[in-house]
């Protein structure tokens, strides 16, 4: 059973979002997503300063098996990327909610966080799959 921390918010496309309460959020992929993908071997991160709308493809994570897009959970500007992942993409497998975070986004519309799923809804969502 995959881990779904209760303090985070989630998307249907398996990103997690942590509200840092300073107008920014941290984003990664869920434990369930990393299990589905298998061993990660490459991460393509966006440039800092990239501005995108919610649901735009912002990163690519590749496992041995396949490439998968990661989508913006909310609209905003990418302000920090986890560049440690370039040499250690397996960190996402080992620690999807901590060291394996992908990007930090400065929200352009803070209300969008309320549109995301809570842990219970996400758990129900992945049980349907």
């Amino acid at each position: 059973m995959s881990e779904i921390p209760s303090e985070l918010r989630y998307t249907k496309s398996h990103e997690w979002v942590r509200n840092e309460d300073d107008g920014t959020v941290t984003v990664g992929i869920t434990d369930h997503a990393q299990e589905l993908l298998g061993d990660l071997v490459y991460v393509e991160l966006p440039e800092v300063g990239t501005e995108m709308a919610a649901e735009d493809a912002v990163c690519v994570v590749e496992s041995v098996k396949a490439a998968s897009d990661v989508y913006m959970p909310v609209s905003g500007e990418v302000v920090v990327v986890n560049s440690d992942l370039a040499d250690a993409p397996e960190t996402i497998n080992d620690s999807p909610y901590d060291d394996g975070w992908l990007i930090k986004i400065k929200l352009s519309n803070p209300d969008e966080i309320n549109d995301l799923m809570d842990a219970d809804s996400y758990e129900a969502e992945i049980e349907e799959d």
Partner: protein
Amino acid sequence: MSKKTVLYDKHVEYGGKIVDFAGWQMPVNYGSQIEEHHQVRTDAGMFDVSHMTVIDLTGEDVKPFLQKLLANDVARLKAQGKALYSCMLNQDGGVIDDLIVYYLEDIWYRMVVNAATRDKDLAWIDQQSSGFDVEIKERSDLAMIAVQGPRARQKAIEVLPVDVVEAASELDRFYGSQCGEWFVGRTGYTGEDGFEIMLPDSEAPSFWDGLAEAGVKPCGLGARDTLRLEAGMNLYGADMTESTSPLISGLGWTVAWEPEDRDFIGRAALERQREKGVAQKLVGLVLEEKGILRGHQRVVVDGVGEGETTSGTFSPTLKQSIAFARVPKQTGSHCQVEIRGKLLSARVVKPVFVRDGKAV
């Protein structure tokens, strides 16, 4: 309706992540594909390959029939038990399937063909056999376990039945031996030493447990793919298909042109291609930048033309991405591959990346 091999319950018991493969419920990994890959390169791993199709061909005409059916020549099999890799071609010289054939007796050969191509292969073989005294029998009663890696033979021998051990211990590379209802071949699809063992379905689950106790780790189809790619072994349906000839698929070496009067299916078409000169070749690529090569990516060769990757992956041994690509014949030592709109540079190499655990 998805099929299960006799080892399905074992896969679930051992924590296999099950996926659909060519209509079969098969384990893609048992946790980490990369760990399973290294396990085979450095020690011993086992794969359930019972979904593959085993066909026994018997009868007075079996040798002349196979000399017509296959692009490689079974007359090269002089010693009992010897195995041969071959393509089975259509009249246009396209590849219907690739396979291994073992010479067991003068009137008995055994072929192993791909799971995904089972139906069309059996139909084709049956159709071509008219006029030959040959019986074609699918051996769906047999399970098949590939035990691969530098310590695979030693560990398998510990658990093989007593009456199989002696024959198995004496096998040279690329030979097989029938021992009662069991068959052991010193063959594989990983670039490592090892056995491919066929055995009655009913005995497979306990043999699987025995191998596990001897320290042979279960490995999924995911690792099987990265291992074969590193070893430079083609995958049917990706690296060659019915619309590509062996001559542009890195498989020219498997076509037996001599004797000239052996009229195998597809020969006339291949001869025309050879006279005209083929325009493409299959090469290996090593990506020189970060990223992962996959099948069907565009390959650009400066001043020469374009090609396409046929299969690609991350190589756990080289820790770089590798691929096979079909490129113009004149391609030199470098090319570029388009990944998500960007051209990345790659080195063109012979399509063998790793052999017996070491980078080539």
